[in-house]
């Protein structure tokens, strides 16, 4: 009997206690029995004596294990390691959760073809596992060592194509794994992804069907129309809504055609006339004539137009809003033969709000550059500008637009923050426009120090350094100055 087994027997005896079983101590191996002197001692002492001896024997006699396989070593990296200062900044970005600095670091490292030191790879892979947007950059920068390391942690296996077939995961995986596979496949082979959805459509629950349908937004094309059209008859209202929304994003879809037909009698355009002095004719401004729909048509329901307003709004205005939102913006400019700004300006004052909101829905579905500025200028501050839409604004127009928005003095800073984040990184012109138009407090509130072009950071620093704000604002300013210093350092470290 070895010492480990002896010890286990002693543990069993000790658990129950020696009371009443004093003479039934487990047998000891001879080697141990001879060094202990049981004579005259109580059972407790004898048990503890034996346990001490067995403990020491088992510790002293432990053996190494054979047959633990070493894994194949990582191949050598392709890129050189970044500078120690760059590595220190990366560590700080992790420690202080400076996400935009992390993104910038990865972009610059990828461009400079340098990699982080190996000891920071686990944190980098962990960050990429938590944030999908980091993955393409992270997979580039982690180099061979990172690719090698991923195999040891299931959470990190986002970059390597799954060893399993997508079909297998789709049939057997949990919802999260299935969503992951679907998104990946949709990006590379949209048709195959749609076919994959169809294989389990009948058996999937309403929540899952809604999620799969929403995934079609990735690489959406006319090829998806037939499937989405069939979704308009789905049992779940959520699925119907998503399908209608996606179909409205396809300019050539039957749903879009139906929307255009519905809108035709509702909105008419009267072009203006230029005044002619000699004929004594006065100029006429272009105008839109709006006719509210008379009654709710049952066929609208299927195309996602709801009968009852989801908010405090007249019922007929609510229908108008939804129909206008389903018409591609190009349609108006082409049919009316007028520019977007003319059309927006032509909206009659009593319907302006509803029309602008409808156009904003259409704009969110399919950004049309020409419409962005007039609508941004005409919209109420409450309207939601998503990042996708903001990124559709051409870089050359951003400075002008931002200045115009700031001049309105009514932007809640949250929305500005959104704009500043969506347009990250700023070019020089935009940075200078921002510096010119904003006081230090607003520069801080919008976290513009993450977005500014590196060449503009010196001026940002100068503005913040001289500024005397409240103590809480001073702390923010300190944070901004830290970030600014880190960003300039990474640009310097990765330059040349």
């Amino acid at each position, binding site marked *: 009997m070895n010492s480990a087994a002896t010890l286990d027997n002693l543990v069993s005896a000790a*658990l129950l206690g020696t009371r009443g079983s004093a003479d039934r101590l487990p047998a000891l191996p001879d080697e141990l029995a001879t060094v202990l002197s049981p004579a005259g001692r109580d059972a407790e002492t004898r048990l503890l004596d034996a346990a001490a001896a*067995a403990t020491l024997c088992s510790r002293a006699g432990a*053996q190494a294990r054979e047959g*633990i396989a070493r894994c194949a070593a990582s191949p050598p990296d392709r890129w050189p390691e970044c500078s120690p200062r760059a590595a220190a900044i990366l560590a700080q970005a992790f420690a202080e959760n400076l996400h935009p600095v992390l993104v910038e670091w990865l972009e610059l490292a990828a461009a400079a073809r340098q990699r982080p030191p190996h000891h920071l790879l686990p944190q980098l892979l962990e960050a990429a596992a938590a944030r999908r947007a980091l993955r393409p950059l992270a997979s580039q920068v982690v180099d061979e060592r990172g690719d090698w390391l991923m195999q040891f942690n299931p959470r990190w296996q986002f970059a390597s194509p799954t060893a399993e077939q997508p079909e297998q995961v789709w049939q057997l995986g949990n919802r999260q794994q299935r969503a992951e596979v679907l998104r990946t496949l949709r990006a590379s082979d949209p048709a195959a992804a749609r076919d994959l959805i169809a294989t389990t459509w009948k058996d999937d629950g309403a929540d899952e069907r809604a999620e799969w349908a929403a995934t079609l937004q990735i690489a959406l094309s006319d090829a998806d129309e037939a499937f989405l059209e069939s979704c308009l008859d789905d049992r779940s209202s959520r699925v119907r809504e998503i399908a209608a929304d996606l179909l409205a994003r396809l300019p050539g879809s039957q749903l879009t055609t139906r929307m255009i037909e519905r809108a035709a009698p509702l909105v008419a355009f009267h072009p203006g006339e230029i005044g002619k002095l000699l004929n004594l004719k006065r100029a006429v401004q272009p105008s839109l004539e709006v006719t509210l729909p008379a009654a709710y048509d049952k066929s609208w329901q299927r195309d996602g137009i709801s009968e009852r307003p989801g908010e405090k709004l007249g019922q007929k205005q609510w229908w108008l809003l939804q129909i206008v939102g389903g018409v591609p913006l190009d349609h108006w400019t082409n049919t009316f033969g007028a520019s977007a700004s003319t059309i927006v300006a032509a909206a009659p004052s009593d319907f302006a709000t509803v029309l602008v909101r409808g156009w904003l829905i259409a704009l969110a579905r399919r950004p049309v550059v020409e419409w962005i500025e007039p609508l941004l200028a005409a919209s109420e501050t409450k309207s939601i500008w998503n990042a996708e839409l903001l990124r559709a604004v051409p870089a050359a127009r951003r400075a002008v637009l931002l200045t115009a928005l700031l001049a309105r003095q009514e932007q809640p800073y949250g929305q500005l923050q959104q704009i500043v984040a969506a347009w990250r990184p700023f070019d020089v012109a935009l940075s200078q426009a921002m510096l010119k138009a904003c006081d230090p407090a607003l520069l801080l509130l919008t976290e513009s120090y993450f977005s500014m072009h590196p060449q503009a950071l010196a001026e940002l620093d100068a503005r913040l350094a001289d500024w005397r704000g409240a103590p809480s604002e001073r702390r923010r300013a300190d944070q901004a100055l830290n970030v600014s210093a880190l960003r300039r350092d990474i640009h310097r470290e990765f330059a040349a």
Partner: protein
Amino acid sequence: MARTFTRDDVLRLAPDAGSAKSGQDLAQVRKWGLLEHDDIALWGECQGSGAKPYRVQIDLAEPAFKCSCPSRKFPCKHGLALLLIYATTPDAPTAAAQPDWVQEWLASRQARASKAAEKQSREPAPRDPAAQAKRREKRIERARAGLADLSAWMRDLVRTGIGTAPGRGFEYFDSQARRMVDAQAPGVARLVRQLGSLASAGAGWQRPFLEQLSLVHLLTAAVERFAILPEAIRADVEGVLGITTAADELSELAGVADLWQVVAQEVELEDRLRVQRTWLYGAKTERVAQVLQFAHGAAAFDNTLSPGTEFEGELVFFPGSGLRAVVRTQQPNFAPLAALAGLDRFDQLLDRYSAALAEFPWLERLCLPLRQVTPARVDERWWIVDATGAALATALGDDAGYLLLAVSGGRPVDLAAEYDGQRLRPLTVIVDGKVFSLATNLADAA
């Protein structure tokens, strides 16, 4: 050539997590009006909340800190920040001649050091060995009475069955531990408190609990027979009880000269006391040494011993066969480890451990440098494999495990690891001359 530091070296000096954070925030060149250095010292001026900037200076040899700020943390955030700047952007401070205030401080340090050396070299106060022996005897006597009670308490627990231990609550163990403190046996108090933790450790608690209980029992048995024990074992028993050896007694013992390699360091919290454990390995004598430092609250540790460095010098081991030692003399030049001395195979490690355990049964852990061993992850657990293919399980958590794997790339690395008779606990890994700590540090944890 002045000593160099890494960012981790500096953060390890922080008295607490808050100081580490503030130090990093302040480690921005722009926050410093003055940033200068020479080969001996580093100094700067940092604008604080007052009108006058704080004057911060660092003696790079130790490193030792001085700052004109009112903080009672030591080193303060300004000192940490200054050294952090030096560690991460060595070009930032400009080389310059020492200003008066730095010269004055260094001179006063020098004066203090020579005074202390003089005091040490002077004839030590005449010791009275007889009186000392009598004091010791008295302490053993007190401990013996306390441990007799402890023995009765343990036997009672075994009689009713240790299965009742988890249900008894921590106070059951804590009150017993307090009695051991009263009996002037703080070392035993710690072991008894550990019993309380082991009992509440959840699934699989039984065996470690009985192991620990039996070793405390062995201690009570040893104290009972103290008079007939050999001198070396008596010293060991005194050490485990927590009866410390006075500095003047240590000064009479022979030192062990060697090229001492600092292989690992960790800081643990033991009963509101921070304990810094530094492991050293003699490149020539192959002896293992453990240097302990204790600090209350935010007090600082002496930071001379930094993992991954080596120095020629002399250690004095505490009496007995334990590993504890203090540094007696050290050459001022700490150099990065040139080549890690140590073992190449696990059978050597197991032999060393068995031999050490045979001499000192209360050995809790032995830290040894291991050369060219490979980490592996099998069955969701972390293993270390030596060149012969023998493997030992580790106590690594995932954070440290992935870090070790990442820096190794699946190739053999040099490691310093504690072994406790069951599992390895890697504390330091060295790859291409770079040193990474795998130990949990208080500054990181908080």
